[in-house]
């Protein structure tokens, strides 16, 4: 299987990357781990004239915890995300998403920026990042801008990232005391497959133990990852227990529009949305109690 021809660029700095990407505009495509782009190019689904590697830019590989944020460079690998203490201790549902992605071989190459930039509706990292309310830092020759992850995905494979722009960093606010989150994915195999359904839930309890904030994210059941507004509405202001989570899970099933395909029927996926919503809420509650 041959790759289409392209010109290859390996900028050493972010500034150089901005220049090259702005020069070639929509004829250029950034590459990091290549685990999505190289596959799509081999399948001839994509054929950029210029491929711009971001892998040699040291500043994009950093991980920092500062000012109440975990800041993850776009080229930070998924394998390193599983190992990173700052991620595990502060935003554990993101570690869970990282551990569920692909195989160990893929995780050693794949990056957080790549997983977001590819914008697959079944991707493993977006649900947790949406649950935590993450922000993406996009950079271009014109400077940088912050985009909340809820506004980032447009349709399968398309995002808010414009030609000439690249994802530089992902910032996740460290959840406050009383907050917890959970992520679960369902696939036909334990590794190396596309999810059938994936869900992340986030709750934050106030001092009297009532849910103050709730976010439930559903993957694989729409063109992009979806917030579950009906489920969130039921959770907010409620006392977290099995009965409430069950009600929220039922509501989440009405918050999505799964298609029937070879991975499962729409009906099955809808049922699994309910199961995973309930279970991720239970994980989130356990964590919230520990964080109090």
């Amino acid at each position, binding site marked *: 299987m*041959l790759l289409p021809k392209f010109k*290859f660029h390996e900028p050493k700095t972010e500034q150089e990357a901005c220049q090259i990407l702005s020069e070639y505009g929509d004829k250029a495509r950034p590459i990091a781990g290549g*685990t999505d782009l190289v596959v799509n190019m*081999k399948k001839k689904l994509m054929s950029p004239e210029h*491929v711009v590697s971001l892998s040699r830019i040291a500043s994009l590989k950093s991980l920092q915890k500062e000012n109440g944020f975990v800041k993850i460079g776009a080229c930070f690998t998924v394998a390193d995300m599983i190992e990173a203490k700052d991620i595990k201790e502060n935003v554990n549902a993101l570690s869970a998403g990282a551990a569920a992605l692909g195989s*160990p*071989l*893929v995780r050693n*190459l794949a990056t957080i920026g790549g997983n977001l930039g590819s914008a697959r509706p079944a991707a493993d990292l977006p649900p947790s990042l949406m649950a935590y309310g993450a922000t993406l830092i996009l950079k271009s020759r014109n400077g940088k801008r912050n985009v909340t992850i809820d506004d980032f995905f447009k349709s399968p494979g398309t995002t808010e990232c414009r030609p000439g722009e690249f994802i530089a960093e992902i910032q996740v606010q460290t959840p406050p005391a009383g907050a917890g989150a959970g992520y679960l994915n369902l696939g036909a195999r334990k590794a*190396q497959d596309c999810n059938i359904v994936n869900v992340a839930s986030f709750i934050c309890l106030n001092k009297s133990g009532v849910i103050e904030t709730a976010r439930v994210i559903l993957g694989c059941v729409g063109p992009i990852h979806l917030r579950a507004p009906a489920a969130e509405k039921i959770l907010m202001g409620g006392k977290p227990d099995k009965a409430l989570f069950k009600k929220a899970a039922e509501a989440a099933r009405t918050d999505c529009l799964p298609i029937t395909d070879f991975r499962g029927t729409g009906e099955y996926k809808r049922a699994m949305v309910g199961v995973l919503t309930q279970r991720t809420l239970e994980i989130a509650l356990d964590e919230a109690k520990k964080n109090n």
Partner: protein
Amino acid sequence: MKELINLTINDQTYEVAVAPNQTLLDVLRYQLELTGTKKGCELGDCGSCTVIMDDKPVNSCLVLAMQAVGKDIKTIEGLETEQGLHPVQKAFVEKQGVQCGFCTSGMILSAKSLLDKNAGPTEQEIRKALSGNLCRCTGYQKIIESVQAASKEISK
């Protein structure tokens, strides 16, 4: 247009002319004739092209050769030393972890990477570490037993 690059493979430096659209896998097999690295699905699903890059096992079919410049690459050919086969290789022979052999290079490299980090893994940890390497012959049991035997040998 082709460009001359230097690749460090099994502690040797190779100067090789590559085009941007050549993968590390193709350069290893067709230009350097290191055919121990196998070409299976070519899409990062099967793991038969596994090489160790900077101490981490990766799918060489997804790495552009130019991206591998400056990296320390180990292929199956680099495991044997003057003392003989690597303990993982030996265990695969002794415990019949090899049937048709196509997945074997990748299995051994993934297993070696695991044992380098964790010399005494549980069965579950072994299965997880090998989950990117597919075998269509053995049903995996003999492979798991081979890695367990290698782990015992290494921990001696």
